[in-house]
């Protein structure tokens, strides 16, 4: 097992490092220019702000979801996860329909005679990143709350804990454990921001490292510069991972008996606050989704025939990627939970900060001398999708794998419950919830991803995102919006199927 996890972790690291190395080797070195400092500064600023705001807002939302029971709660949790699954450009258009110059908000402000707000600038970048990442942060923190055994809350109730006492003794230790990882994850995602930063940042003020990499590869064909920038970006992601690692401590709540006890749900003003938090979060996350739905619906009637084979291809790639992602993430998380191989944490987190363009370019350089890249379009897509969703899957599975190890590791070992039997009887049933969620996330992310395939794509291997782009490039905006809606719908259906499957298996 340790050997297998080591090998898999090593391969994941290699998949990050080899393309970068290939680019640097081809270029004969690395280079940075003084102008990169501004890009670095802006990248760090927006990523740090986005991480802080996302995680800060996710705490009250997750708490309200954890301790309140109301009709439609499960549905709300699922639907609120949707923004994270949106292709970036679709998300941007949805946000602009609400917050843009001609959006609902500014129309209302103007009608009320108030000054309109501009979304373009740092505020817009952070707004979009929070929109995209609040769902992920909320789910990570909600899982933390759910991982506190009900017995602990029962004990708290029996000791007459006030909500403040519960916070100090139960919730704060859990948050100290969960928040650094959640913040590091959002930070690393935002490090590679390109389209969001450019479109909503309002122009060259908002130049990120990833844009500088685009410029270096596309216009200057300066691979030394691209490799240098990519190394900086990946190193920042690695530092964020290490920082999260150093900050997070195991909360050590011990095991519970799976007794279904609702969390204490304090009444009074706290109930009102929880209600307001949920209403605001739902409105913020769902209004742009509604706008996407409204703008895409007419286009659904004019979907071209080419959409269907592309949809089948995308779903197939997503399913294979999702299963691979969860398998790899589980092996790495279990090895880490067993206290072995601390470095797999890096292997599992570094892909977050990897430049998609450098990854694709490097793989192209590696593959091209041996086979025509077109032949490998789909396998490379699957592999890259797996790599890029691995960090999320790992983050989601790790805390529960650690809890599983702490609570039942010795019992399982004492009974000789190892290998496949352990997987089937202990790991899968106990981790069904995070595994289902992670698989859903990986599948949906894989549906929406375009990045790397562009260099490898052949005539006939179009996936759904590529069809959306082709329609938009041919002025067919309505059909593009309709196809994008179909893409979002399929992503969401895949996500829902895995997530619900995991929750049912866990129940």
């Amino acid at each position, binding site marked *: 097992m340790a050997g297998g996890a080591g090998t898999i972790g090593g391969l994941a690291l290699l998949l990050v490092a080899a393309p970068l190395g290939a680019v640097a080797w081809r270029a004969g070195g690395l280079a940075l220019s003084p102008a990169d400092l501004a890009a670095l500064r802006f990248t760090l600023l927006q990523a740090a702000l986005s991480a802080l705001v996302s995680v800060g807002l996710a705490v009250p939302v997750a708490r309200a979801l954890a301790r309140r029971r109301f009709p439609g709660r499960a549905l709300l949790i699922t639907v609120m996860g949707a923004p994270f699954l949106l292709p970036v450009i679709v998300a941007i258009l949805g946000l602009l329909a609400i917050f843009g110059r001609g959006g609902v908000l500014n129309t209302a402000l103007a009608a009320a005679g108030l000054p309109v707000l501009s979304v373009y600038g740092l505020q817009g970048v952070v707004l979009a990143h929070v929109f995209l990442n609040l769902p992920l942060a909320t789910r990570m923190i909600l899982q933390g709350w759910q991982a506190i055994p009900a017995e602990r809350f029962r004990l708290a109730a029996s000791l007459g804990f006030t909500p403040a006492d519960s916070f100090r003794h139960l919730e704060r230790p859990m948050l100290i454990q969960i928040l650094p990882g959640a913040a590091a994850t959002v930070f690393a995602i935002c490090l590679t921001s390109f389209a969001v930063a450019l479109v909503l940042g309002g122009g060259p003020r908002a130049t990120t490292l990833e844009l500088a990499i685009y410029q270096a590869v596309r216009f200057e064909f300066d691979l030394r510069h691209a490799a240098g920038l990519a190394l900086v970006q990946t190193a920042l992601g690695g530092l964020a991972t290490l920082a999260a690692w150093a900050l997070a401590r195991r909360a050590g709540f011990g*095991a519970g008996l*799976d007794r279904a006890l609702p969390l204490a749900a304090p009444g009074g003003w706290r109930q009102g606050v929880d209600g307001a938090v949920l209403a605001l979060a739902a409105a913020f996350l769902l209004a742009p989704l509604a706008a996407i739905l409204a703008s895409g619906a007419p286009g659904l009637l004019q979907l071209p025939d080419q959409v269907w084979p592309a949809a089948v291809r995308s779903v197939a790639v997503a399913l294979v990627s999702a299963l691979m992602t969860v398998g790899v993430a589980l092996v790495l998380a279990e090895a880490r939970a067993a206290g072995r191989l601390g470095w797999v944490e890096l292997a599992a987190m570094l892909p977050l900060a990897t430049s998609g363009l450098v990854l694709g370019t490097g793989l192209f350089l590696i593959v091209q001398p041996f086979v025509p890249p077109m032949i490998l379009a789909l396998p490379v897509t699957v592999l890259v999708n797996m790599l890029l969703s691995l960090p999320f899957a790992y983050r989601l599975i790790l805390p529960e794998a650690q809890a599983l190890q702490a609570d039942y590791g*010795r019992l399982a*070992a*004492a009974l*000789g419950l190892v290998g496949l*039997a352990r997987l089937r*009887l202990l790991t899968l049933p106990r981790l069904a919830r995070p595994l289902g969620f992670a698989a859903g996330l990986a599948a949906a992310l894989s549906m929406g991803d375009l990045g790397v395939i562009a260099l490898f794509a052949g005539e006939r291997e179009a996936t759904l995102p590529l069809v959306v782009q082709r329609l938009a490039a041919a002025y067919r905006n309505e059909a593009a919006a309709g196809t994008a809606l179909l893409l979002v719908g399929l992503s969401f259906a895949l996500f829902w199927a895995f997530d619900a499957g995991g929750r049912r298996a866990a129940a």
Partner: protein
Amino acid sequence: MRGDAVLQLDHLVIAQDAFRLSADWQVPAGARVALIGPSGAGKSTLLAAIAGFLAPVSGRILWQGRDLAPLPPGARPLSVLFQDQNLFPHLTVAQNLGLGLRPDLRLSPDERARVAAALERVGLDGLGARRPAELSGGQMARAALARVLLRARPLLLLDEPFAALGPALKADMLALVAEVAARTGATLLMVTHDPTDARAICDLAVLVAEGRAEPPRPPTALFAERPPALADYLGPAMQ
């Protein structure tokens, strides 16, 4: 009952963080040994080392002359009952027992019958389909003991699994342990805080204190001699 030495701790030294414990003694086959000593003295740590969760710093743990070091916990000739978490909450009681026969739970009809029989023997007949959360504390302890019965390993390690039970129930369980040990001919090592428990079912006692686990001797002799470490632990009011 008493046979040749089966369990031997050969110049054993174990350590966890700043804590160190040494032991150099052996236990005859079929013995029932109480590990007694102050809280934090290392009783559970010693059991963890024997069970294979903690590698010795030096020395060896031998079973019938064979070094246990290369064996993972599940492959060692022993069963262990922890202070808690002896049952998986997502599996039924019968499944939890079945793990004692085949960890992959692919049980034959015969093995299923043995699970049912074990349940009956510990007084849990008919409760096989329940989840642990639906059992009382005493019932959970019985279920865990039933699995020990099924595993039928020659060494049984008890890390105070009944500490949470009431006195009468605990006495019942200890009697059941004695019965199970007798039935399977197992050698028993149990951690306890309570001299009464030690006297009730054990024929040997090991004092664990001040970084050392003393060689076993009859409990009556140990309590009569009352070495200073034991006296501190038992307190002046006792005896």
